[in-house]
């Protein structure tokens, strides 16, 4: 790798507040350091060169932790995957996030990797993204506008524009991810390819959120990983399931629909055939309350 391709870091900042962080990114020449599990590797490989200034946000106050306020759960960008695994609020209100965290990389990576980083990294196989998509999450983007901190909120569905690419501008900082507290009776599950329990880049992963109302499916959200250039909401399959009665016939039709809805590629991890094969299996398992994988 040519050293030029990794870009430069001729300045370092370690802001203490969100406003300072946003200011440090204002000219679009900042590279954000959060968990750091991908940053150095991607820069060294020339995939995402350093932009000139390393902005270490790890000391920004208030960016780590899970809180609930007025029926909305807020996960700070610096919340680690291990935090999700151990958080009592997550365990009570959104256990699918802990279940996903349990399938995420290794202990050391879980200790470092942040929710914000996993979203901004925008890998088509990013595990944490899928349950958040299924929970209709949105992200808060902070920036420095006209001498003040500004924020905008963007739905996670639509946030991703390609592998490693999002609608977030280089001057923006993802501060938090938010979603409405799932009401009682809402089910959410996550399933990921093995056979290793966690330390895998998913060949296929999938998450679902749904409400089963007297046998009828409501508000179905199905998110799929590693079957498209971005994490994917399977909206045709969702529409097929919406308002229908959950039975064997419906599950079979859902599996058929989802196979037609994804267009995966052959790569070093799997063929397109196997990815489609797994997607249909996982959709069946998610609907059959067999998310163990």
């Amino acid at each position: 790798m040519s050293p030029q391709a990794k870009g430069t870091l001729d300045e370092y900042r370690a802001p203490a507040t969100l406003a300072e962080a946003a200011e440090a990114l204002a000219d679009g020449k900042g590279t954000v350091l959060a968990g750091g599990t991908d940053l150095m590797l991607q820069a060294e490989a020339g995939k995402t060169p350093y932009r000139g200034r390393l902005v270490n946000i790890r000391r920004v106050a208030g960016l780590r932790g899970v809180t609930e306020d007025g029926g909305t759960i807020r996960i700070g960008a610096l919340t680690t995957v291990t935090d999700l695994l151990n958080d009592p609020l997550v365990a009570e209100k959104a256990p699918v996030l802990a279940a996903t965290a349990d399938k995420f990389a290794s202990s050391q990576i879980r200790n470092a990797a942040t929710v914000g980083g996993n979203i901004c990294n925008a890998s088509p196989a990013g595990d944490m993204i899928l349950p958040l998509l299924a929970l209709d999450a949105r992200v808060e983007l902070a920036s420095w506008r006209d001498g003040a901190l500004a924020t905008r909120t963007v739905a996670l569905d639509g946030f991703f524009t390609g592998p490693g690419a999002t609608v977030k501008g280089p001057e923006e900082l993802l501060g938090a991810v938010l979603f409405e507290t799932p009401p009682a009776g809402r089910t959410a599950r996550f399933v990921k390819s093995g056979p290793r329990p966690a330390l895998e880049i998913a060949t296929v992963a999938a998450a679902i959120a749904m409400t089963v109302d007297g046998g009828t499916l409501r508000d179905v959200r199905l998110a799929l990983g590693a079957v498209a250039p971005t994490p994917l909401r399977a909206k045709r399959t969702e529409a097929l399931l919406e308002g229908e009665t959950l039975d064997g016939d419906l599950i079979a039709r859902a599996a058929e629909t989802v196979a037609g809805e994804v267009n995966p590629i052959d790569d070093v991890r799997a063929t397109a055939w196997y990815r489609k094969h797994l997607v249909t299996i996982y959709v069946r398992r998610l609907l059959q309350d067999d998310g163990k994988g």
Partner: protein
Amino acid sequence: MTAKVEIEFTLNGRPRRVTVPADMSTLTLLREELGLTGSKLACGEGECGACTILVDGVSQNACLMFAVDCAGRDLLTIEGLRTEDALHPMQRAFVDHGAIQCGFCMPGMIMQAKYLADTTPGLTREGMRRGLEGNVCRCTGYKKVFDAVADAAGIDG
């Protein structure tokens, strides 16, 4: 020109002050600047765990951690684990259970094992196996590692 940053931190119980380039990894800082070669470079991608250290008591792959981010932290490496007189019980268990063959992965394995034992109340054998999933060993087949960790961490069975 890569920015150089002066940082202060605690390393194996002693305060340190160093100046590091902004793009340097903590593993490079430890191995090449500070001469602590116990933490190993085996993949440099966070995939093998041979560089595992504890940062504020939490295990991290030093190869992925920016050295500038050590500022204000408390780092423990394999070199700092033993006391003056004796091996740490986790180190002792690895020796006594025959868990060390070529040994190259073992500094990272031992640090991760210590993290699991320190931070997991009621650690089970299955939890231990999961907790070690990020540490690759090519010699032992892990069995003796499990025996050592179970012994040192007081896991039954």
